[in-house]
């Protein structure tokens, strides 16, 4: 009874009615529903309203200085199709995703499997620390660091090439339209590789040791164990990493801004930086919002596809 009295507080439609067990349950439900409702409102307001708002803004042309807004329908989306920089940026995002999947999913998985397969606990801890350290550095700091690594002539990379007699391979890494995006992607892999490997390591640690023991008794070698046990048993983590990598590749921004600002001649532009430049440099928020909508659709599609795939192929013990 005391609980019921406490729950029938101010605002309850049941205040003053005769307390019964059914009544108490109803009151409890109403009380809980109020908190759920608050959560729903907050999530809708702060998570989903901005998304809807972005789609609305993408159908307008807004002059930020005067605040005047003009409804332009789907003009911004039509303009997207005719904008060669959008296609370059989209291509760079896809390139980013493909290379990141190779390094941050498959290569990181192999590295984690090798490290977790080491007999010595001390060695395992040592290598985990070695490959994880770059991930602990801010991406902006890493971008600046690699900006100096790639400096023509004086940078670490060109100095190394000269030192080993390969000076003729020196290139303006960030200054050339042909190499700029690859130079930035390479830095991202260096930075993100260890984090992915660490997550794979955690997934591998959860695999029951007995499975490996049984496989060894059946004569399975390291490669066989990798593909027959480790890979299927970490499928969910692999799926998750693919989603995170693809969405990350479409949200990339900081490293491009720090290292090339999208140049030279927009060759290293990605959708995120082009969005920023359209919105905040060229004052065209509507067009920027249309680019944001493309990023949203692509990342949502990637996420849904990967979720569907991992659910369908889940391995139960």
């Amino acid at each position, binding site marked *: 009874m005391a609980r019921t009295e406490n729950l029938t507080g101010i605002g309850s439609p049941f205040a003053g009615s005769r307390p019964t067990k059914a009544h108490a349950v109803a009151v409890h439900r109403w009380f809980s529903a109020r908190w759920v409702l608050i959560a729903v409102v907050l999530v809708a307001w702060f998570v989903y309203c901005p998304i809807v708002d972005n789609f609305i803004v993408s159908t*307008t042309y807004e002059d930020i200085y005067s605040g005047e807004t003009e409804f332009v329908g789907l003009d911004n989306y039509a303009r997207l199709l005719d904008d060669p920089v959008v296609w370059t940026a989209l291509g760079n995002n896809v390139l980013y995703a493909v290379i990141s999947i190779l390094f941050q999913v498959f290569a990181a998985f192999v590295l984690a499997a090798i490290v977790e397969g080491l007999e010595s606990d001390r060695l395992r801890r040592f290598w985990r620390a070695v490959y994880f350290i770059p991930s602990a550095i801010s991406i902006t700091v890493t971008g600046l660091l690699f900006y100096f690594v790639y400096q023509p002539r004086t940078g670490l990379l060109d100095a190394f090439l000269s030192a080993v007699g390969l000076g003729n391979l020196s290139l303006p890494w960030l200054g050339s339209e042909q190499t700029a995006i690859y130079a930035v992607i390479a830095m991202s892999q260096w930075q993100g590789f260890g984090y992915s490997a660490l997550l794979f390591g955690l997934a591998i640690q959860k695999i029951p040791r007995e499975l490996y023991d049984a496989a060894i008794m059946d004569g399975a070698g390291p490669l066989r164990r990798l593909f027959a046990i480790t890979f299927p048993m970490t499928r969910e983590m692999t799926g998750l990493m693919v989603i995170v990598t693809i969405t990350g590749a479409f949200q990339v921004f900081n490293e491009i801004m720090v290292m090339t600002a999208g140049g*030279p*001649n927009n060759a290293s532009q990605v959708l995120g930086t082009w969005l920023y430049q359209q919105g905040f440099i060229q004052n065209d928020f509507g067009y920027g919002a249309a680019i944001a909508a493309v990023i949203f659709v692509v990342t949502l599609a990637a996420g849904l596809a990967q979720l569907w795939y991992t659910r369908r192929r889940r391995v139960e013990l």
Partner: protein
Amino acid sequence: MKRSSLVVALATASVLALSTAPGLARDAVVADPDAKVDYNGTLSVLTKFGLQQLSPYFVNVAKAYEALHPGVKIELIQESDDSIKGKTKTLVASNSLPDVYFSWTGSWGENFVRGHRAVDLSKVIGPDTPWGKTISPAAVKAFEYNGKLYGIPLYLDAKFMGYSKPLFDKAGIAVPKTFEELLASCDALKKSGTTAIALGNKEAWPALHYIGQLVAYNVPTATLERDFDPAKATFDDPGYVAALDQFKQLADRCTDGAAVNGTSYASALQSLSNGDSAMYYQEIIEFDQSAAADTKLKRDEFGFFRLPPPAGAKGDVKAIEGAPEGYMISAASRNIPLAIDFMKFVTSPANAKVLSAPPYGQPSATIGGASPSDMNPAVVEGLKDIAEADYLMPWLDTANTPRVAAAWLSSIQALLGGTMTADQVMASVKKASAADAKRK
């Protein structure tokens, strides 16, 4: 109504509401010269002095003002040349412009005026007003839009080629008098094992400054000014292509070529200061950073000259690229008289002299605010050159609309990298200009 229909209806209603809304149309705000100053409250100030060397200037001025008026707090937001561009637009978009904010002249400042974001200062800074009489009239006029004055010029700026006297001596060359002599000097410097010109074009605007000066030499001034107006711009004068071809020659013979697109402006400046490069095209406000007590290149080893004009140039060979830079007062400020009073303090002769002298070296726009005895002699000489110029060529990236500026910036990176020709650069600029005209 089905749920999906409801969502569509709501979205459509929102869009219609947006499209038919009157916007945020504001009335023009005019400063009243007789308004009483209320020395209470906080004044926010957005500066372009975020660099380590420059930032103490506004910090010290703010402290001095607060000491004079204990009821006032100055809130400084200090940004660098690059970061202020994005920051300002973010503040505009969120209706959070500070009471006082930095502005370039040209199209950049015009945006604030068009959007009624800036206070009309004509009655307080006009040539016949007490304050106006203390500031260079030409500098004040640079912030004139629609016959009204909106800016408070803080310092004068122009572009010069700084050089290292020891490296010129080592290569056995003298200050070039023509563009062709400059190219020949580069060959001699390269032979002596020195990078002739340090150019860092990662930010894309440093190369545009060369183009700006060369365009002023090659394109008649009237044509140039017509092309600054999006409604009339054609960009079809052959002088543009000539200027771009000249710049390409300079880039190929004097700089690291395509590598400059991966080098920052600051790194290039350091290259001159460290004695690694013989020349660096810089603003007069950077003279005190190029050669100082703690740099390898000492002040007496630093020289400068105007980018020499090419033979047969069809434009104004006495033009110099540069413009005053200054501040505007936000039309939304709650204490406009206080903001004006603070800027009167900033531009007072005493503070102007501090600004003009090392380590700041920003030649003040205040009359009598530059004391040659306290200033770097190179800055004093540079100011004479500015005074003798026929025409001040504005920065192309702030004089043009953002879309046209973006076309210039990216295309010139391509020109440097060898993936676009001068004709293709101009085609790109024309295309952007046409798109702008359509929008207007």
